């Protein structure tokens, strides 16, 4: 057998078939195409995922550490608390706490799309805090999952009929409480609280924290992200932090995976910084004022509740957060969408319900 033929055989052995989730990359492309005709907006599209991931990480951190501290003081400032879902809801079987967390990016809402209200939910997470608070599970719900959305009312009170649609459309049309209701009806998990973090506030939040300390293994010079940083330990301000989160081509191997890891590292650093606020009331109130603008919660997340959650999480290690994604496959009627893999998803949410994650 000649060398090229053997090499081809070898290649066939190494080959993998495209997975169902490749449909997500199509969606990623479509998101990038939605600019004005003839005017490519690749940067925005490439960053959308970064924003989503950053939103995810920010959201997790907020839920686990920051939000409780913030809302201790800031609750009075949260305008229009979100009502919890009406009607039949799943029972609460144990002391575990489930919080629905939406990362939105009103700044990046596609101006050309002209659909729905301004903000769009990029990231949808169900955060599970075990009854003993020893474990934190973060379940990511792909925004393009097709789902049965129950009848809701939009924020103005207009009734919306039940339908099957992309899960993030529940947010676009019915707001946070409609997503809440949808997630409860899909998972059978009692969602205790809901929280919406608008990631457009990221820069301001970092500045209000007084910056975030990071240690860089190598210097950074990324003109695209307008970022130049020396090697070593330093404190990043809001602009630099944003650049660091977004930078891609001049850091690591340039992949999304690399960037996600970097973002998670940054978020751990941010969590650490936020943790220090407990002993710095002046900074805390500055941070609260800033973060309060970007966070929406339900009315049930009152001061006493927040204090209790914050206290209960004091000894939880923020590095021990476990990330999972709802198992999905391509949607039968439209392979560009996803649908939940029912039996696997059922398993996952049974573990959430029984607090055995």
């Amino acid at each position, binding site marked *: 057998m000649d060398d*090229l033929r*053997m090499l081809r055989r070898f290649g066939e052995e190494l080959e*993998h078939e*495209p*997975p169902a989730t*490749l449909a997500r990359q199509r969606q990623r492309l479509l998101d990038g*195409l939605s600019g004005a005709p003839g005017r*490519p907006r690749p940067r925005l599209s490439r960053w959308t995922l970064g924003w989503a991931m950053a939103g995810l990480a920010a959201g997790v951190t907020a839920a686990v550490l920051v939000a409780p501290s913030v809302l201790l003081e800031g609750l009075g400032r949260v305008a229009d608390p979100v009502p919890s879902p009406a009607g039949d809801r799943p029972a609460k079987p144990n002391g575990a706490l489930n919080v629905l967390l939406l990362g939105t990016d009103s700044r990046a809402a596609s101006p050309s799309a002209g659909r729905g209200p301004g903000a769009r939910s990029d990231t949808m997470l169900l955060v599970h805090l075990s009854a003993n608070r020893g474990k934190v599970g973060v379940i990511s719900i792909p925004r393009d999952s097709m789902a049965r959305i129950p009848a809701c009312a939009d924020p103005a009170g207009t009734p919306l009929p039940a339908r099957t649609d992309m899960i993030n459309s529940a947010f676009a049309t019915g707001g946070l409480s409609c997503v809440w209701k949808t997630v409860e009806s899909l998972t059978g998990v009692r969602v205790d609280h809901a929280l919406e973090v608008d990631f457009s506030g990221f820069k301001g939040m970092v500045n209000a924290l007084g910056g975030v300390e990071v240690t860089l293994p190598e210097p950074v010079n990324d003109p695209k992200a307008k970022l130049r940083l020396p090697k070593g330990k330093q404190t990043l301000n809001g602009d630099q932090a944003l650049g660091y989160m977004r930078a891609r081509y001049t850091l690591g191997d340039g*992949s999304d*995976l690399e960037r996600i890891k970097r973002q998670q590292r940054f978020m751990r650093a941010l969590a650490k910084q936020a943790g220090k606020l407990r002993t710095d009331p002046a900074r805390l109130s500055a941070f609260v004022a800033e973060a309060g603008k970007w966070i929406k919660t339900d009315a049930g997340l009152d001061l006493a509740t927040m204090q209790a959650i914050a206290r209960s999480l004091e000894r939880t290690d923020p590095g021990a957060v476990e990330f999972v994604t709802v198992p999905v496959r391509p949607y039968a009627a439209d392979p560009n969408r996803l649908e939940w893999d029912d039996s696997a998803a059922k398993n996952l949410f049974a573990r959430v319900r029984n607090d055995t994650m």
Partner: protein
Amino acid sequence: MNPSGDLWRDIADHFSDGKAGPDAMVHRMTAPPTTETRDCDLLHESRTRPEAFAALFDRYSGMLYRYVSRRLGPEVAEDLVGETFLVAFDRRSRYDLSYPDARPWLFGIATKLVSRHHRTEAARYRALQRSPAEDTVENPEERVVAEVTALTSRPALASALAGLPSKDRDVLLLIAWGDLSYEEVARSLGIPVGTVRSRLSRARRKVRAALGDTNPMHEEERPWTT
């Protein structure tokens, strides 16, 4: 870059490499589409109607995924394919519409992105060189295929690939795994056909040496020796 007289020689070379005949089935990976709209027409249309670009994804994402999964494994392939199309979309106005087939262009972009993962790729081949087939074969159907081929050549091939300079490896794999012609590889990588030819022959020489040598641990083929 232009289809000159070289092209015919390339085509002749291409077929003399045994690509016709028994190996024709190999082409399933990159078989040209049977759809009527040409890639260049889609690309032209996408300049004013960006949605048209999605059709290129539907045509070629699977093919690119398979190619990248060979070189980097499935973990990285998905994101890299998505990235390839975003970059391609970004550059669509620079596409030379006189080329009807967009595959070389897309392969070129994917190859550039693959090169950012050169450490992953080298580590992958090194692992294949050391370990038995089971490590990378995940299900029974794949195992059957694996057993049909000469398993003994696997470490030698992996070893040769790991040891190639990345420029030579790109050319070799675009031809062997991407099923591109010399001319198409030249277009993909933006290099002269003569360079394709010399890189390919250098790479093949090393592969042949690795295969011919019963000892795959031969020093000459192991520049990464620790």
